[in-house]
Each structure stands twice: as C-alpha cells, then as structure tokens.
C-alpha cells in the first residue's frame, strides 16, 4: 500500500511536469520551436505504458536480486533488446545521422568502431561475467581480492563514468526536448530526472529493462520506417542515392572517402581502443549480463544485441545519406530558407527533419517521442548502475561488511537513485552551455582505462593482487581524467588556455597501458602473505569462471 501512495505522489509530480508542457511557448526563445502536439501525445502514451509496467514491476520487486537484476530471469532475447536499448542513445540516432549527413563515410567508420567491441565482449568476457558476477562488476574484481578497498575503487570509477555519461545524456535531453517539444530547458531536465527516479526506485531492474525493451523496439521501428520511406524515393537503389548525394554535397566525390575526422593515426587508433574497450567497461552495460539466467543466455543476449546494433547502424547510414538530398535540398529546413545555411534546430536535427519530409508531422512526432524515450531509458540504466555501486558495493559490502539486510540495502539503493536523479538534474542545468562531446569521450575513456583493465586482469591473470588492482584502477582513472582535462577539448575550449598540454583528444591509447602496467608492476612486487592467498584463490575462481558452477542463479540465493 505504501508503495502505491509513493507511486501516486510520483505521478502527481509528473502531472505537474505535464501541465508545464501545455504552457504557451515562451516568446522570443529563438531556438525553441512551436509546441509539437503529435510528439507530446505519443510521448505521453509511452510514459503511460511504461508507468503501467513500473506499477506492475513494483509488485514483483521484493529482494535485492529483483531490484538489481530482475531476479536473473530475463531471457537472452529480451536482454539483447534491452542491451541494444541501453547502448543506442539519442546520440546514436541524431548524432550519427548528422555525422553521415555532414561527413559521409566518416560517420560509417565511427559506427563500425562502436560495433566492433561487441564480438570481443562475447568471445572474451560474457560468460565469465555471468559466471562470476552477481549484481555489479565489482563482484568480479573483488572476487578474491580485498573486498573493502577494491570495491571502493570500483565504485568510485563506476560513479565517475556514470556521472559523466549522465551529464552528456541530460544536457542532450534538455536541448533536444527544447527543440522537439517546445519545452523550457529546465522543465525538460526535471521531467527526465523525475521520470527516471520513478522508474528506477519503484520498478528497479524489471521496469528499467522493460523501458529499454520498448524503447529499443520503437527506435528500430521508427528508424526503419523513416529509412524505408526515404530510400523509396531513390527506388531503393544505392547507386542512384549516391549519384545524387555526391552531386549535391559540398564534399562532392570526397563524400565517400575517409575524411578529416580520423586523419591522424594516433587519434584513429586511440578512438578505436576507447570505443571498443570503453563499451566493455561501462557499468550499466556490464550490469545487464547479470540479469539473465546463465552463461548460455548471456551469450545469446550479445548475439541479439549486436545484431540489432549492426542493423540499426546501417539504417542510420542510409538515413544520413538520404538526408543529404531530401533535407539538404529543401529550403524549408534551413533558417531563413537559405539552402546550405544553418539547419533549423542545429546540425543534430537531420534525422528529425528527414522524418518530417518523408512522413509528415505524425512521423516527426513519433521519432521525437522515440528520441525522448531513448534518453529516458539510457538515463534509467545509468542511474540503476550508479545506485547499485552505492548500495551494493559501498553500503552493503564496504560499510556494513556484508551484514546489511536486504530491506535496508534496497532502501539505500532507492535513496541513492533519488540522490543521483537530483545530481543529474543539477549537473544538467549547470552544464547546459557545455559541449557534451567531451563528456561522452571522457566516459568511454575512463571506462576503458579504469574499469576494463582491472576487470579483464581479474578474470584472466592469476597474478593480480589487491595492491596491483588498486594501483591499476586508480592509475587508469586518474590518468584518463587528466589526459582529457589537458586535451584541447577541455584545456583550450573550456578553460581557455593557449595550447593543450596533451596533444590528442582520445585518452585510451595512453591511459590503458598505464593502467595495465601499474597493475602488473604492483602485483608482481607484492610479496605479502595476503597476496599469496589471493593468487591461490584464483584456481577456484578459474573453475567457476569456466564452468559456471556456484554462479549466482536465477532462483533465490
């Protein structure tokens, strides 16, 4: 009953936010567009559906296992959709379409880099993750090491990644919603933050998973529909499409050549490493591997997820190319009706304009709702990952040393979710004017340098000790953050210094070796008795990693 009243209060809050939607558009806000009713109605339908699911999920969320991992009862196919939903953010839909629109082939190269990490995760990590972990990836790094110290380290780097990723998503959400729905930036930020808190606190992983599944289906359907309608204008001929696109694009035939984006080999390789191994170190992605029954389903999830991701990237590539002609040659979409000028709403709006051009206001409304839903789903997954780092790692294992009751652990994670929600709202408002690209870069860079090396070493290298893990983890975290801080995108563009101290934008190529090297050196030189025990304990861990015997099961633990 108490849960019901909570839900009621939350719905009340939402209604307040919804009323703000209906307010008249503020005059004079240049970038803001007229209130888009199609989008708002469709989005409200999405919210109502997901609220219904949250209500249903709240009755099924009783134990910590339910809250963190949906009781481990998600099937491989469902989890595959949810991973795809978690991984493909609004940046994918809008940013990559815009990149293809502006730079052609370069955008396609980026997509391959985003995709290529998945097979590697499957071959080297998926089954070990499932066999060793329970709720968070720190369960694996701390499996045979000092619980308190290693979990604290893993929780700090998880929270760092989550916060930077949250900023990027929140700022993106605010700007997008301002444009699409004609809402105030701050209202949009509050709406996202509050909805996220409701989903996660009441529905835990069950609700979050279903929000992601629904959103993934909407994204795949909407994208495919727009691509289909747009591509049909070229008789589904790639030849015709490219002939027309290269004829009108300012790059001309260069459109299909690798361009300036990856011209420098160090940046290209560093970006490749960061995207590939950053994916394998994102806490909200790793967490999804604990929601399935066993290693078998974990493998299947990657198969489905990577299939959806690969398919959708190719859809986006076609959307971007069609946009060059359909959007790029239509003065209606440019400010002041000037072809080649500034796109209405900014460069990221290509996908939206394309949907309007091929499907009218209905399709635009649908795609706008999809974009909002996408942000909401990704933000919810992040909040849950951050909350579990606080409640499961810091509270239950470090502070209470494993003696916390399930009820108190769930309570802490709900409080943590609400705190993270407010942190996300505040950060979103503080960073409104900030360039969000470097936040995403930082999140992937930190994940690749701080989370991935220690995680993979703990699974594969017998010799890893607590001391090595701590130096490797903190070393990777600090060096990747510093490399980004000293790079051009922060040191010059944000802090207005004359020249960057670190010449490359991508930290992974440099910070990852530092993490591996520190972990190796400080493990090798660790001759304590404790280290000896930790190395011995690897044998049992190894058998469990290989066979799954003793792994946290889907039923109660």
């Amino acid at each position, binding site marked *: 009953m108490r849960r019901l009243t909570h839900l009621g209060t939350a719905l009340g809050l939402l209604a307040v936010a919804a009323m703000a939607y209906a307010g008249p558009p503020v005059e004079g806000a240049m970038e803001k567009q007229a209130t888009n009713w199609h989008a708002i109605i469709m989005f409200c339908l999405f919210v109502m559906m997901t609220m219904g699911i949250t209500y249903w999920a709240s009755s099924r969320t009783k134990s910590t296992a339910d809250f963190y991992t949906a009781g481990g009862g998600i099937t491989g196919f469902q989890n595959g959709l949810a991973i795809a939903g978690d991984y493909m953010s609004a940046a994918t839909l809008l940013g990559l379409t815009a990149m293809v629109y502006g730079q052609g082939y370069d955008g396609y190269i980026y997509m391959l880099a985003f995709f290529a990490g998945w097979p590697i995760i499957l071959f080297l990590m998926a089954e070990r993750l499932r066999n060793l972990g329970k709720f968070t990836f720190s369960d694996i790094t701390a499996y045979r090491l000092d619980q308190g110290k290693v979990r604290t380290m893993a929780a700090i780097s998880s929270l760092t990644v989550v916060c930077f990723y949250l900023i990027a998503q929140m700022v993106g959400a605010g700007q997008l919603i301002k444009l699409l729905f004609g809402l105030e930036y701050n209202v949009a930020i509050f709406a996202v933050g509050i909805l996220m808190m409701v989903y996660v606190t009441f529905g835990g992983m069950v609700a979050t998973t279903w929000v992601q599944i629904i959103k993934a289906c909407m994204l795949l359907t909407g994208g495919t529909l727009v691509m289909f309608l747009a591509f049909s204008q070229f008789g589904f001929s790639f030849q015709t499409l490219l002939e027309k696109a290269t004829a009108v694009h300012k790059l001309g035939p260069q459109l299909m050549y690798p361009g300036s984006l990856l011209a420098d080999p160090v940046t290209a*390789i560093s970006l490749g490493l960061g995207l*590939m191994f950053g994916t394998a170190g994102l806490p909200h992605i790793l967490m999804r591997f604990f929601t399935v029954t066993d290693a078998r389903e974990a493998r*299947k999830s990657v198969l489905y997820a990577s299939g959806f991701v690969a398919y959708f990237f190719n859809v986006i590539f076609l959307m971007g190319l069609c946009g060059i002609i359909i959007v790029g040659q239509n003065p209606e979409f440019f400010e002041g009706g000037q072809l080649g000028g500034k796109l209405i709403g900014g460069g990221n709006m290509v996908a939206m304009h394309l949907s309007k051009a091929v499907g009218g206001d209905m399709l635009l409304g649908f795609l706008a709702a999809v974009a909002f839903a996408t942000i909401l789903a990704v933000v919810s997954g992040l909040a849950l990952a951050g909350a579990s780092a606080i409640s499961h790692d810091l509270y239950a294992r470090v502070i209470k040393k494993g003696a916390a009751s399930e009820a108190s652990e769930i309570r802490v994670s709900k409080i943590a979710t609400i705190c993270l929600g407010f942190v996300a709202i505040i950060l979103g408002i503080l960073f409104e004017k900030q360039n969000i690209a470097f936040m995403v870069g930082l999140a992937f860079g930190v994940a690749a340098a701080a989370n991935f090396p220690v995680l993979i070493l703990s699974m594969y290298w017998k010799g890893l000790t607590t001391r090595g893990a701590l130096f490797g983890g903190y070393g990777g975290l600090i060096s990747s953050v510093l490399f980004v801080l000293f790079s051009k995108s922060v040191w010059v563009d944000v802090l207005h210094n004359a020249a960057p101290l670190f010449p490359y934008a991508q930290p992974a190529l440099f910070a990852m070796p530092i993490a591996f090297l520190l972990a190796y050196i400080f493990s090798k030189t660790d001759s304590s008795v404790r280290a000896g025990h930790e190395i011995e304990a690897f044998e049992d861990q190894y*058998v*469990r990693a290989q066979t799954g015997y003793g792994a946290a099961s889907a039923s109660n633990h």
Partner: protein
Amino acid sequence: MSSAMYERMRANPKFKELVSRRGRFAWTLAFIVLSMFYGFVMVVAFNPAALGQPVAEGSMLTVGVAVELFMFIFFWSLTAVYVKRANSEFDALTQEIVKEAWKENK
C-alpha cells in the same frame, strides 16, 4: 560451492579439454576481429584513398563501404558461430564436468 568440488573439476581431464578447446576458439575469433578492425583503422589512417575507389568502373559503391558492410555482417556471423558452438558443445562438456564432480562427491 566447496573448494573440494572445484578441486575435483580441475582434476578432470575434460576440464582441461574444455578450457583449451574453448580458449583456442574464442581467442582465434577475437584475433580475427581485432586484426581486421585495426587493420581497417590503419588503412583509414595511412591510405584513405584506397577506400574511396569504386568497386567496379562506373559503380558508386566504394571499396570502403563494401569492406565495412562486409565486416558488419562477418563479425556478427562470428558471434553467431561462437554462440552456436558454445551453447551446444561447450555447455554439454561443462555439464558433464559438473555432473562427474557431483558423482564423486557421493
């Protein structure tokens, strides 16, 4: 999840077989993906012009697009191959190992 169970499983020759067979398979596939992907990144960095060539005279399809599309499909096929083999052959072997360790337990 006693240590004795793990000890018995480790001693089972089938365990070594599982580890070496699956390890070899997984690392081979990982090596193929990594070398193709980073090989491609190298071409992007050092010889971008090669990727802009059309696959055939008069065709708008470039080598770069064809190669990438191939990699999307090929990498995904590799995941399918791995999942198929792991979910049948390796899982069956794993179950045997666990079962045999249980039997010895009794």
